[in-house]
């Protein structure tokens, strides 16, 4: 049975997601808003993208499908996908 994370509710930002993304991509957390994406930092390239989703999977103990990995295009997408997966 997957543990339901307290901070992950509809419309809320998953606990610690912003800090994790900032860590993995090496950017300041304040720079990260809903639309933050590959255009805003060179570290979010195709390899960085995979590192990012793998790190998020590990932290939230979830697994994305290939489709989901391919459809995440910005921080807002990522947060929404984590919310969706954590509820499942």
């Amino acid at each position: 049975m997957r543990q339901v994370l307290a901070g992950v509710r509809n419309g809320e930002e998953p606990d610690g997601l912003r800090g994790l993304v900032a860590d993995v991509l090496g950017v300041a957390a304040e720079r990260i808003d809903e639309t933050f994406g590959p255009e805003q930092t060179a570290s979010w390239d195709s390899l960085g993208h995979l590192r990012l989703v793998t790190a998020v999977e590990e932290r939230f103990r979830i697994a994305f499908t290939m489709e989901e990995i391919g459809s995440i295009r910005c921080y807002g997408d990522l947060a929404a996908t984590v919310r969706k997966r954590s509820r499942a």
Partner: protein
Amino acid sequence: MKVGVTNGISADGSARPAPLRVAYLSNFSLAPLHEHVSAAAAAFGLRLEPYVAGYDQYMQEVLGGGPLHAFRPDVVALFLALDRLRPENMRRLPSLSEARRRELRSEILAHVDGWLQAAKARLPGTFLVSNFPAAPRPWLGVADAKEAYGEREFRLELNLELLRLLRDEPRAHLFDLDCVTARFGADAAADSRLRYLAKMQWSFGFLPPLAAELARHLRAIAAPPRKCLVLDLDGTLWGGVVGEDGPDGIRIGQGDPIGEAFQDLQCRLKAFQAAGVLLAVCSKNNPEDVQEAFRRRPEMPLRMDDFVAAEINWRPKHDNLRRIAGALNIGLESLVFVDDNPAEIELVRQLLPEVQTLLLPSDPSAGLAALDGLADFERVRVLEEDAAKTRQYRENRAREVHRSVVGELDEYLKSLETTVELDVVRSEELPRIHQLFSKTNQFNLTTRRYTLPELERLTAEESCVLVKAAAKDRFGELGTIGAYLLRVEGEEARIDSFLMSCRAMGRSVERAMMNDLKARFLSLGRFRSLRGRFVPTARNRPAEGFLEAEGFRPAGGEAEEGTRGGDDGEGRGLDYLLAYEEVAERPCPWIEVVRA
């Protein structure tokens, strides 16, 4: 020509050496493996400069003269995934005929061999070739084992033949990806999403353990192994305390889980010895108790005479480690100290940072895994000489005792009945000579750390003569103990390298070698002079003054000023000259010389 220090590690820590240049080639996406390897290698003090070839460019980059060639790799690692190498065939493996499957195996092997031969002909350095992980789930399932040349058999034979192919290649080594994958777990090592999305073969989680194993190989290729494993006794070789529990009370041997674990631990240590590692004891105990324990407990795989040195007393362990290094005539950076007491380990760590330490877990069942974690003794091959190391040191000890009986030095040297055999190095002897070049610190005039490929190239040049010295005496064989490299350059000949193992020090073998060098120099023809050089390091004091003693004069002079800045990365050296007319052998009555 740029030769000299190419290893990413320094033996004496005196100079910051060039990083080890490692190229990664593959037919899938390797990124970011190289970052993990560099981090893992840093833990061994090995600095890497990586080069990652373009996706699936492993053949083109070797054949073309592009960036890989400009990179001048020290090590080239090759990873090939079968399902990308022969996608059509591998996808339809069960539907291929048995004959076709056998043919496919030969084709793949020929492809790898073809790559290796092409790479060897075009690139310097050493090649690390990965094998192929076992199929976690053969397509025929359970029935695969009954199939003639099924998927298991196909992969087993492919790996077996690759192992045999690489075993006889001096410049290429196997990387056992199959084993690393199995140890980590094949399921966890793969991430099929990354495979489809990014042409990656491995999960991110598999990269650190894979990198750790690669770094171990790089260490074996580029850095000299440590020489001696110094062991505590109570709680390390057996359970209990011999001084309190008595020789019969300590736990070692069958019938007791704790005793069985310690017995296995001792067997593992004995295996290190067979691979050329010296064993020594450093323990706070009464020596009589310990002698008694080894005598009364035949269950112990290790015996007292397996140890080339033993400091069993109540002195601090860092003092004893110094004594052990001194007795064996090796540096502290050649020692690994194993103890189950965290306080002793911490003390040694702080006071003797050169010594590698290993804290054994308090549960002896975890001891084997802890020992296996040591990479300090890794070497690419074990030579016959390595296996005989303990015997040689034991004989050296007998010589020491003999010396104290005989007294006068002259008489002593004579009584040793040393014979030195000098001969031009043959190509099959190069691995041992290379080992001497990489390990000899003390009696070494220039400390040039040639790689094996560099030595191969030098010996092929007509202007170079590489000679080895082997010695024996009344106590036994000392083996190959020295070498010199003489190079002709215009009107001069130059002593590029001159080195002798510390095992042969103090008996004038170096003079016999120099006499041979002089004779060979004279036989080469008429020259202006013979040039020598002494490059001081933190460790080679024993070689200081040697050239003067053999008749050389400091080159001095306005033009040379005695020292030259190293243009080959070797630092400052002192140049010496000996005019052709003045070349003469010096008396060396204690040694019988045999020239082949």
